[in-house]
């Protein structure tokens, strides 16, 4: 054999063999790692992949009113889902939806979101196509399902029975209880964040990643909903409970092979919630407003419990659960009566003359004004640079504090405010509950504005002018407050320091509100004088609401039980100006143009705050009638009727309902989040 020609061949073969040997060793080492050293780990994983654990939502916690009526429960729900197999193409899913839409209507938006979900195939979970099906639709889908199952060109669908959140009182609790909907990315992010906070797991730990993954899968479940508003939102982690799991065998394309038992994976129901609200009062109030835009909040003076909190008009939350149609939603959004807006808690308006009670209290407490001192009202008064008008152009004559409140004399309170000074007034306003966002356990809530020098410097970078104080004296200018805050204010006037801070959740999630300011100590006669003035408003001839309330009678027909039979109320009206009245708008006698001649949107808001019975206050209420013009004429009768209804049943006197199941934890936050 002549081997002279390849001089390098031997060395090349050696190098090649060495490289080959190295590769051989490398492959063997890796195989040994996988099959010998990490085998147990992979065996476990192999087990998991075959048997898929899909999250099963826990029954959502029930929300009750104080009397035990269900405000948010569940109803039977027929729904249809589509299964995003790995094999299923977009065309297959589209074709399947086409077939399904012959049975149940599927909106274009829904169709798009289904295709998007199918494209992402998140966890191969079934995707909701439609729910709340009728029995007929449900059985038709059931007939169709096997045909789809066996077709290569269509995706398999499932018709199933589950539960859907339902709100039996329709619109009565839209703003407080809120509603649930399918979760979007933002919702899921929020829940994950909250769960991590509750269980104090660091954000970037593997545990946190596992929690996030689980939550993501859970909220993609076709039956899972998330609280979008109100208590449903605030108490989401408590209400949703602890999800269980269903076990089933799947093949790689996602087709179900067999369902397995789910022993040990049973869900734990969510925590029930009880509100201090009374469903009867709530419904009564909504009907009493009769479609007008407005708000009413009533507080039990003895306990601080909010027994009524309505904002009208109020949409039906049931419409939102399965996804409200764009046209319906647009109609709600464009309604000039603002049904989606929680006027009671989010709406802040100038408190108008109701604020005179605070100015009076501040003047008395600071000693700037003695109750008996008389101030002359000639219809207008000059301060600093201009005239300030009284609402009564011809003037009220000589006014003491009682008369000032009773007649709501502006000139009297201009003088009060000027002497007391804005800082004392602002302090007093805060002690009575203004300028603070109360945490009630629902979404929204605004603090309103209690103006003073600091606030104005911060907000406008401008000092507080003396003239600002004069306007503040009658609750105009910078001051704003929500109907809820005025109800708190009224409850504190009625109950003094004995009225606890307001509460909306009787049992369920904890609702801490650490920054709430108490009323604190007042001179004993201060509140008597203010209450007396408010009594004058309703019950003494000449009081601004006397004529409209038939002398402040809550119970003209003697229908109320003892000790409320024939009781009287006390109150204070107010007007929140919607527009600035310019000099040009006043007529020759200095009167503003009558509201009747203005378009509805520009008319003044009407306020009335009241409590009853006058001598031994039980309930305090604030009523706002948007563009209602006259506090005494329009809002006061509503306040009277609401007080009458509350006293008639007096449900506030009984302590709130306690649900039977042991799920209600007294006041600790839910920690069983997983």
């Amino acid at each position: 054999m002549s081997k002279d020609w390849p001089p390098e061949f031997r060395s090349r073969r050696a190098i090649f063999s060495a490289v080959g040997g190295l590769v051989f060793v490398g492959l063997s080492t890796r195989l040994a790692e996988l099959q010998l050293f990490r085998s147990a780990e992979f065996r476990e994983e192999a087990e998991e992949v075959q048997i898929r654990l899909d999250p099963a939502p826990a029954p959502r916690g029930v929300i009750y009113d104080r009397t035990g009526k269900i405000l948010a429960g569940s109803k039977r729900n027929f729904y249809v889902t589509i299964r995003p197999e790995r094999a299923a193409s977009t065309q297959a899913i589209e074709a399947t939806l086409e077939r399904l839409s012959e049975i149940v209507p599927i909106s274009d938006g829904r169709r798009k979101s289904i295709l998007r979900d199918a494209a992402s195939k998140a966890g191969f979970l079934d995707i909701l196509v439609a729910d709340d099906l009728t029995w007929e639709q449900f059985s038709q889908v059931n007939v169709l399902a096997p045909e789809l199952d066996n077709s290569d060109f269509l995706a398999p669908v499932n018709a199933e029975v589950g539960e859907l959140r339902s709100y039996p009182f329709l619109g009565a609790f839209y703003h407080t209880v809120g509603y649930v909907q399918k979760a979007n990315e933002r919702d899921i992010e929020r829940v994950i964040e909250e769960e991590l906070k509750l269980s104090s797991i660091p954000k970037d730990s593997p545990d946190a990643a596992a929690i996030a993954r689980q939550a993501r899968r859970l909220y993609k479940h076709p039956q899972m909903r998330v609280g979008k508003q109100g208590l449903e939102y605030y108490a989401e982690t408590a209400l949703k409970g602890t999800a269980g799991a269903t076990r089933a065998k799947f093949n790689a394309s996602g087709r179900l092979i067999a369902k397995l038992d789910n022993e040990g994976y049973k869900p734990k129901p969510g925590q029930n919630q009880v509100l201090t609200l009374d469903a009867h009062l709530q419904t009564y109030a909504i009907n009493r407003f009769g479609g007008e835009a407005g708000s009413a909040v009533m507080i039990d003076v003895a306990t601080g419990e909010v027994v009524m909190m309505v904002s009208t008009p109020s949409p039906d939350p049931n419409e939102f659960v399965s996804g409200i149609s764009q046209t319906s939603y647009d109609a709600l959004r464009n309604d000039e009566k603002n049904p989606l807006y929680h006027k009671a808690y989010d709406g802040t308006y100038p408190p108008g003359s109701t604020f005179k009670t605070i100015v009076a209290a501040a003047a008395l407490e600071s000693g700037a004004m003695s109750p008996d001192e008389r101030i002359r009202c000639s219809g207008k008064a000059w301060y600093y640079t201009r005239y300030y008008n009284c609402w009564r152009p011809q003037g009220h004559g000589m006014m003491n504090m009682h008369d000032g409140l009773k007649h709501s004399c502006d000139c009297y309170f201009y003088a009060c405010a000027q002497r007391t000074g804005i800082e004392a007034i602002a302090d007093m306003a805060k002690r009575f509950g203004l300028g603070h966002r109360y945490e009630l356990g629902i979404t929204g809530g605004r603090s309103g504005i209690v103006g003073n020098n600091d606030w104005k410097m911060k907000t406008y970078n401008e000092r507080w002018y003396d003239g600002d104080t004069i306007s503040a004296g009658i609750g105009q200018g910078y001051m704003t407050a929500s109907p809820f805050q005025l109800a708190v204010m009224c409850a504190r006037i009625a109950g003094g320091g004995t009225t606890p801070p307001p509460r909306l959740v009787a049992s369920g999630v904890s609702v801490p509100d650490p920054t709430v300011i108490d009323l604190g100590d007042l001179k004993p006669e201060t509140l008597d004088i203010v209450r007396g003035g408010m009594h004058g408003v309703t019950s003494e001839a000449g009081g601004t609401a006397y004529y409209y309330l038939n002398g402040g009678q809550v119970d003209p027909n003697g229908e109320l039980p003892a000790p409320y039979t024939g009781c009287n109320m006390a109150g204070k009206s107010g007007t929140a100006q919607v527009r600035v009245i310019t000099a040009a708008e006043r007529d020759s006698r200095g009167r503003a143009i009558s509201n009747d001649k203005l378009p509805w949107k520009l008319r003044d808001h009407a306020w009335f705050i009241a409590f009853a019975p006058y001598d031994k206050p039980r309930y305090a209420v604030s009523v706002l009638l948007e563009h209602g013009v006259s506090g005494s004429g329009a809002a006061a009768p509503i306040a009277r009727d609401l007080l009458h209804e509350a006293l008639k049943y007096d449900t506030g006197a009984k302590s709130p309902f306690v649900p039977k199941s042991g799920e209600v934890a007294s006041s600790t936050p839910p920690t069983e989040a997983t």
Partner: protein
Amino acid sequence: MTRRGDLISRLASLHWFLLLTVLVLATMGVAVLFSAGWSPFDPTTNGARINADLAINHGVRFLLFLMIALAAALVPLRIWASLAFPAYFIGVILLIGVDLFGVVVKGERWLQLGPIRIQPSELMKLAVPLALARYYHQMWEARRRGFWIHVWALAIVMIPTVLVLRQPDLGTALMILGTGCAVIFFAGINLYVVAGVIALLIASAPLVYFFGLHDYQRERVNTMFNPEADPLGTGYQLQQALIAIGSGGAGGKGYMEGSQKQLDYIPEQHTDFIFTIIAEEFGFAGSMTVLVIWALVLVQGLSIASRSASRFGALAAAGFTSTLFLYVGINIGMVIGLLPVVGIPLPLISYGGTVMMTVMIGFGLLMAIHIDRDEQMALRGIL
């Protein structure tokens, strides 16, 4: 030395050990494909599913190509040598044809010639080492040495590589390039040049990664380093493959008992990922057996190369051995997560006709070189 001219004596001097290892590997392929076709539960029939088609096709195909391989072994090496350049030129022309008139089928371009659809890139896997071997053989006879002959050799490699890359078929292009470079390496290019090229490749890897790859290719590279990151996307296949292999343990779950296979978790399991079934059902013992038998085949290939008296035979054998080495190394490396997922099957075991054809003809060539190992050919011109 006797010339083994007649058929009988050629048959008698066949490389029986190589033939045996090939037979063992192909038999394993049939057995494993039978297992792949069996599933204890099939939702369409609610019963077990037995699909022996894969195994039968594979066995029949192997026997058919075994005949062709034996026939090829009987072809004198001189004829192989004269086919080398024509095969190469026809291959290049067909590749250009694909580039210009190709029809797209399953993401790659094929050449439609009347009723037949052909994929000339497969032919190039053999034509390139043959052409290179002949080229070097003639250079040697002409006493031409030095750096520049290797540059021309590289051109012979790069033309089909670039054409295949345009199809786009990264896997085959890499195979052709790798095989060609191996032949150049065996032909005696300066080791400093080899070291320089390797260093350059390593240095330019990040550049290739960021600018030279398609998005899906980059994805696959990422997946290799972190298969868990996206278990339902690109990492899915690999993740499932690792689970199947790892769960096999030392001794495996037993023939036909692989549960990952049974639930159809691994796509392409009967082709590129066939190794996962062996690893799952026969464990570490089974996977090492495959590895060792393949190592034996490669050692045989190398020894045939070094015993060949002609430069053409030595380089062609070394080239084909390198092809096999690349096939096996890349396939197993990719299945066990050491290399990015590229579509390279495991020869003789994976289901599929193209690779079976290439590899079996290659074995025929290898055996022809073995039979004519003592022949020193005087080659001139093109044929």
